[in-house]
């Protein structure tokens, strides 16, 4: 198995899906000759040409809307939003059209579009290049939202998203792009959408999180293991719809639950996770459900100390985990 970076897993999944199915095509801003501002589509333009790798005008609603039209036609578009922050002009297309197409046509039409976007902070991106936007879409039935944490998951989940018959939002943590490397099989594989994954078995406390925070939790868990605290880590992978069964199982396993997101705390994905646990695990809990999240401020600032305060990091996670273990 080759060791590749998180972003290489994106490119590799795109390339293999484009080779496998000629209906798959990529569209977005600067995805062609430049290969994307993060280089996620690097080399695809040369390999597949301008009919399958489209540099679009700077218009996010058009990227989503043209993709939706092509998807309903029978193509498999993979639309790139250059930054998750820039998805806002496309919200109407995604929520009013893509999410509802199957439903409002009584199953006559469907919309197999994948919309990729780099999200998250910690890269000095400032207010408009750092945001987490998943909660904007996480109560819109018809959509699926995937937020992978490892190169292995990226590749298997992105392939699954492209092959899925419904619209999928695929958010990639931009700091993870080159920070994270991991083994990825050479052969074709897909991972199931809608399924969480246990990233570490443990018995004292349960951490439920997704994306880059999974790594912070894994690092903190290593440290705490030296102190004899055993952490169980569940990676949501698909944050909408949630894998309820896996959440309940993970919560019951230790009775002490810490939920982590880089998003603002109020109204985030983990609030729904907390509700699922509260509804189903009351008598299995030995401590109040804890949440570690970004502060409820509009966006992540650039100034280094401020950014550091906003971001989740292994130290913050470790502290929260220790407090919960000692509860």
């Amino acid at each position, binding site marked *: 198995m080759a060791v590749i970076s998180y972003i290489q897993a994106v490119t590799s999944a795109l390339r293999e899906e484009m080779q496998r199915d000629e209906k798959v095509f990529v569209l977005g801003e600067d995805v062609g000759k430049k290969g994307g501002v993060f280089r996620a589509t690097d080399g695809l333009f040369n390999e597949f040409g301008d009919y399958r790798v489209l540099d679009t005008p700077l218009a996010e609603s058009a990227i989503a809307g043209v993709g939706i*039209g092509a998807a309903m036609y029978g193509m498999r578009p993979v639309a790139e939003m250059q930054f998750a922050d820039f998805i806002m002009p496309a919200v109407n297309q995604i929520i009013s059209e893509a999410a509802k197409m199957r439903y409002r046509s*009584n199953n006559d039409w469907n919309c197999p579009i994948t919309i990729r976007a780099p999200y998250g902070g910690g890269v000095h991106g400032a207010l408009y290049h750092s945001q987490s936007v998943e909660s904007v879409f996480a109560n819109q039935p018809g959509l699926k939202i995937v937020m992978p944490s490892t190169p292995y998951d990226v590749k298997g989940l992105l392939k699954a998203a492209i092959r899925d018959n419904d619209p999928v939002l695929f958010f990639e943590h931009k700091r993870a792009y080159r920070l994270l490397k991991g083994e990825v099989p050479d052969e074709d594989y897909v991972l199931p959408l809608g399924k969480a994954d246990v990233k570490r078995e443990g018995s004292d406390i349960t951490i439920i999180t997704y994306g880059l925070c999974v790594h912070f939790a894994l690092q903190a868990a290593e440290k705490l293991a030296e102190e004899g605290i055993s952490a169980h880590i569940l990676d949501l992978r698909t944050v909408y719809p949630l894998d309820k069964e896996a959440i309940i199982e993970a919560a019951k396993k230790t009775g002490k639950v810490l939920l982590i997101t880089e998003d603002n705390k109020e109204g985030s994905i983990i609030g729904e996770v907390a509700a699922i646990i509260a509804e189903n695990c009351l008598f299995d809990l030995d401590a109040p459900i804890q949440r570690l999240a970004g502060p409820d401020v509009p966006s992540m600032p650039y100034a280094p100390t401020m950014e550091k305060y906003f971001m989740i990091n292994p130290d913050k996670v470790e502290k929260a985990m220790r407090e919960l273990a000692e509860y």
Partner: protein
Amino acid sequence: MEASFPMKQIMDEEGRLVDPSYQEQIDEKLVQQLHYHMLRIRTFDRKAISLQRQGRIGTYPPFEGQEACQVGSALALGEGDWVFPTYRDHGATLTFGADMVRMFLYWNGRQEGCVAPPGKHIFPAAVPIATQILHAVGASWAEKRKGTDRVAIAYFGDGATSEGDFHEGLNFASVFQTPTILFNQNNGYAISVPIERQMNSKTIAQKSVAYGMPGIRIDGNDCFAVYFETKRAVEAAREGNGPTLIEAVTWRTGAHTTADDPTKYRPSGKGKDIVDPLVRLERFMKNDGYWDEQAVKTLQDKLNDEVETAVKGMAEFPAPNPEDLFDHVFAVLPPQLQEQKEFYLEFLKG
């Protein structure tokens, strides 16, 4: 700009040909076809209003006054082309081949109403304004990529031209030279806002200049102008010459919807001088010897029967399946939704 985009007319309000170069192309078959469909959709439209008043269907947006736009453009399309309608374009989709029972079902709140007959490329009507323009660009781009000669037509109103999606759609279509017909029905009002408050431009057609595509302004109450100009745009798109913006100037005779009262905002008497498109065609038919009083009466009876039969079809359509509420959200039902479905079905049992 108005001078650059004069209103194209083939037949004047008295039903006389003002452009004799079309004399030969306007044959008996075309005249009867236009008349048949315009009368047919008007019969449907009036029946729908009456059904709404009786509480038998929901809120309904009439298209009376826009029949020439909808029929003329739909007849200019080919069998395999794509239609992206709004909620006021069911006259066009009925003409293109949508099923009338389904149409009544749609206005009766039934999702099944969006289901097009097999092989008919009619997208579900767009309710959010201008979103469908981008879908038409996307689908027609896909046809172009595939190497077919099929085109897509996007219908939209005057209000939609203020939306971002209109501008993004025109720009995308022109950059990629997609085979898209951007068919605007300028009916004078976006609900209560008149066109002169919608835009400072004198015409909608002139917006094509900004996007480097052909644009034309036509008399939307002249079914011949609509038919031949749409046909010209369709042929250009088929031949690989890209998109065209068509502004068909027409008039919404009635209210925005059955929940609207235009007397609150439309000056009384405004539009009263506009000759109804069906009346105009009838005048032409009388002038040119196509009018057969008895035949028209027989046709009207036949259309009344068709509409009544469709209403019956709507009434007799099986009741909605409660499971549909859950089953068509995703291709595969996620566990939570499965749980909610079971709860609901259990609840229904009492």
